[in-house]
């Protein structure tokens, strides 16, 4: 049982982080808070990938004469790409939030929905 927990806890903690991010995205009304939740969600996925590529006793994937095993470099490459994509999504999302604030004067989801309904009634 102890071995089982030791062999899986990295995955479990990345899933816990993912669920914290998901909760922030669906339960919080503030739009910036939703983006913070999204960031945590993305980072948890990165942790999951890198954990899969780790090999017991492996060294960093850089050539070394004494190395016996290297860690898997492919997840590292994928995550390098994914970090850049995540910063792009964050930037565009925050730019849209700034526009929403200019138009409605608030970044709370429920208030924006109320204001939109009022506008539609006119």
């Amino acid at each position, binding site marked *: 049982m102890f071995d089982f927990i030791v062999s899986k806890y990295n995955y479990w903690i990345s899933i816990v982080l993912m669920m914290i991010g998901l909760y922030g995205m669906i339960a919080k009304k503030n739009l910036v808070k939703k983006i913070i939740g999204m960031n945590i969600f993305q980072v948890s996925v990165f942790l999951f990938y890198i954990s899969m590529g780790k*090999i017991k006793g492996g060294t960093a994937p850089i050539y070394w004469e004494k190395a016996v095993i290297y860690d898997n470099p*492919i997840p590292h490459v994928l995550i390098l790409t994914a970090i850049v994509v995540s910063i792009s999504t964050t930037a565009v999302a925050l*730019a849209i939030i700034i526009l929403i604030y200019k138009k409605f004067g608030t*970044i709370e989801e429920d208030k924006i929905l109320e204001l939109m309904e009022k506008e539609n009634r006119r």
Partner: protein
Amino acid sequence: MVDLLLLVLLVIFALYAVYETDLLSSVVILSAFSLIMTIVWTRLNAVDVAFTEASVGAGVSTIIFLSALSRTKRREEITRNGKKLNIYNFLASLIVIFTGSVLIYGTFDMPDFGDFDAPVNNAIAPRYIYGSMAELGIKNFVTSILAAYRGYDTLGETTVIFTAGVAVVILLRRRDL
């Protein structure tokens, strides 16, 4: 043991970043979260990812958040309309707990952490590791995969950054709102 401690610290910081109502401190906590993540990645031997995270995740991302906060509101407004909000939060946590347990159940079938025989580590990784020095003469395997073997991925990534940059400029220059 250090790894477990760092991971628990990550969970605490993430919880605090989502819980805190002052958005400024929430963003700063998120930056600290990224820095701890950097240490975790160094521990997992992902050095390239570690310094990308330190510069992009803890640096640029925080700056973008702060500049967005300076143009909007700093504090999260909590609207207390009693029962309705509570039911909403309860349903959200129910969905989150359900999804989390299903995902954790899914990890039972996954190969162990650090397993050499896992399919992820045997499909194409050895080809790149042996080829990097023999075919390209690059010592850092991550660089050789990023720039040579999977160069088109990187081209796509650059396209994404360019598109995002153009989109942000177009959005922030709108004057008709």
